[in-house]
């Protein structure tokens, strides 16, 4: 069951990474708000499915919607938040200014969620989304977890095919021209903001979807689940796999989450210092980023060029 859990987590983060790569890989914007979109997707899925809060616990909404419907509404909420942040950050800000603006937005959101308890019960977070549909499907706990993994993998496959299709399409080509030289893109008639904005909302929607799945995976969500370092691991995975290449992105996430994090889980962690292992893992992630940038900056799978095959 351990590996079922590991693969499920990697597959959920692969969906997030595919969304983030549209923003960073294709459009060239280094966004730091994306983990906030996953968080909002998780929170919203929770409060839409787990019913009324029992005092002293408090959170908004408190409905008991069927999980798939809640997931859709959560994605819609994430798109709405991304629409606001994107409208501010993408209009004129680029590179480090864009990164800092998105980081500020997500930090403000983080502090707000952590301290304003009526929203998502502050630091305690929301919990209680335990295996939605398990009784209806008449499954054991472990059986449910395997079925859930199957659902996540099917969704990942659908997301991958969709993103891959967009990547090879005129939209993907246009977005990359904006990344390569936005003045030249504008000089050839492309609305730079609108191009980046559309990719941003699409990517955020995928982050929201990942968040809704993550809610089932961990069945509880609180501020400690979305610290900024988490996004760094996703960036490392995209970098390792190949920025701008959807196949590489998925491969990178699986390589980093399974091959790297899981292997380093067996690092010695003295009983007196239990935080040693996780801390060392952060260091190794940083080292991995540096090594990839130094020796293979395009990643394992380079961004695919379209080939014109007709003979000439």
């Amino acid at each position, binding site marked *: 069951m351990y590996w079922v859990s590991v693969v499920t987590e990697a597959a959920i983060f692969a969906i997030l990474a595919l969304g983030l790569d549209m923003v960073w890989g294709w459009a060239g914007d280094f966004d730091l708000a994306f983990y906030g979109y996953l968080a909002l997707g998780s929170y919203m899925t929770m409060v839409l499915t787990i019913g009324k809060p029992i005092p002293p616990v408090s959170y908004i909404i408190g409905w008991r919607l069927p999980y798939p419907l809640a997931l859709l509404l959560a994605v819609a909420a994430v798109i709405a938040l991304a629409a606001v942040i994107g409208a501010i950050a993408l209009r004129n800000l680029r590179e480090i200014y864009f990164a800092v603006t998105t980081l500020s937005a997500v930090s403000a959101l983080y502090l707000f969620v952590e301290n304003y308890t009526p929203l998502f019960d502050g630091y305690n977070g929301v919990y209680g989304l335990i295996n939605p549909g398990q009784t209806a499907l008449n499954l054991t706990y472990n059986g449910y977890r395997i079925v859930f993994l199957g659902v996540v993998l099917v969704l990942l496959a659908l997301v991958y095919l*969709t993103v891959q*299709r*967009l990547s*090879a*399409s*005129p*939209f*993907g*080509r*246009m977005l*990359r*021209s904006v*990344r*390569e*030289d936005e*003045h*030249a*893109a*504008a*000089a*050839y*008639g*492309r*609305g*730079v903001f609108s191009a980046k904005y*559309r990719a941003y909302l*699409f990517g955020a929607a995928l982050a929201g979807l990942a968040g809704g799945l993550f809610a089932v995976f961990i069945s509880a969500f609180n501020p400690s689940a979305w610290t900024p370092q988490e996004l760094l691991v996703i960036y490392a995975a995209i970098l390792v796999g190949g920025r701008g290449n959807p196949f590489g992105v998925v491969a990178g996430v699986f390589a980093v989450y399974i091959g790297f994090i899981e292997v380093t889980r067996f690092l010695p962690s003295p009983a007196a210092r239990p935080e040693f292992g996780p801390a060392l893992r952060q260091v190794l992630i940083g080292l991995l980023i540096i090594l990839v940038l130094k020796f293979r900056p395009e990643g394992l799978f380079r*961004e695919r*060029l*379209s*080939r*014109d095959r*007709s003979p*000439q």
Partner: protein
Amino acid sequence: MSAAVLQIENLSKSFGGIRAVHDCSFAVGQGQVLGLIGPNGAGKSTVVDLVSGFGQPDAGSIRLAGQELVGMRPDVISRLGLIRTFQNPREWRGLTVMDNVLLARRRFGRESLWRCLTRARRLRREEEPDREQARAIMDRFQLAELKNARAGTLSGGQKRLLEFARIAAADPRLVILDEPMGGVNPVLGVHIRDAVRQFAAAGQAVVVVEHNLPFIENTCDEVVVMDLGEVIAQGVFAGLRGNPRVVDAYLGMDLSHD
């Protein structure tokens, strides 16, 4: 000269206290090549930026085929039929030469995110005639062999040719070339002159900003001379040689160079 494609009237722009362009007026007609010359800092590039929407004028009017452009974004102006270049070739480096030319074909309708998701196969079919045309254009600019190469890997001269291939693919009403001869060898220069004349022969209006005076003389129908933000002379190149203001602006440079 037929009706003006580009009509600039009383254009002015200051940066802080510096008058970059002051009360500038000129026009370019269909099939005409207009040279825009003047010493460094004369305001030529500012005029190009203002016309293409990369800057907003303080005063004046810019009309493309009768339509006022002032206040519009660069992409909107471009869609009305203007293609401008920059002083350095600005190819989309990470994309192939073919993709660069295809992007310049500007089939905006096919770039809709929704259509790309739902009509992928149909879009690919629709694109085939554009690919065919792009191949012909690459052939014309000696890029056929390089169609699948990353544009960033081309040599400086090939990048210039790609610039012209993109303009040919876009087929705009008005072309503005900002120093097309920068870093270009004499053999390639002949190609570039031919390309400019071909644009004009196809009915496009062309504005060329250039320091290379022999190129201007051989390529342009008319010349506008700017200095310190103002138009100081206008007319056929030969007629400007004796103009004392022009000679003065070029610090006594010999404009005859033969």
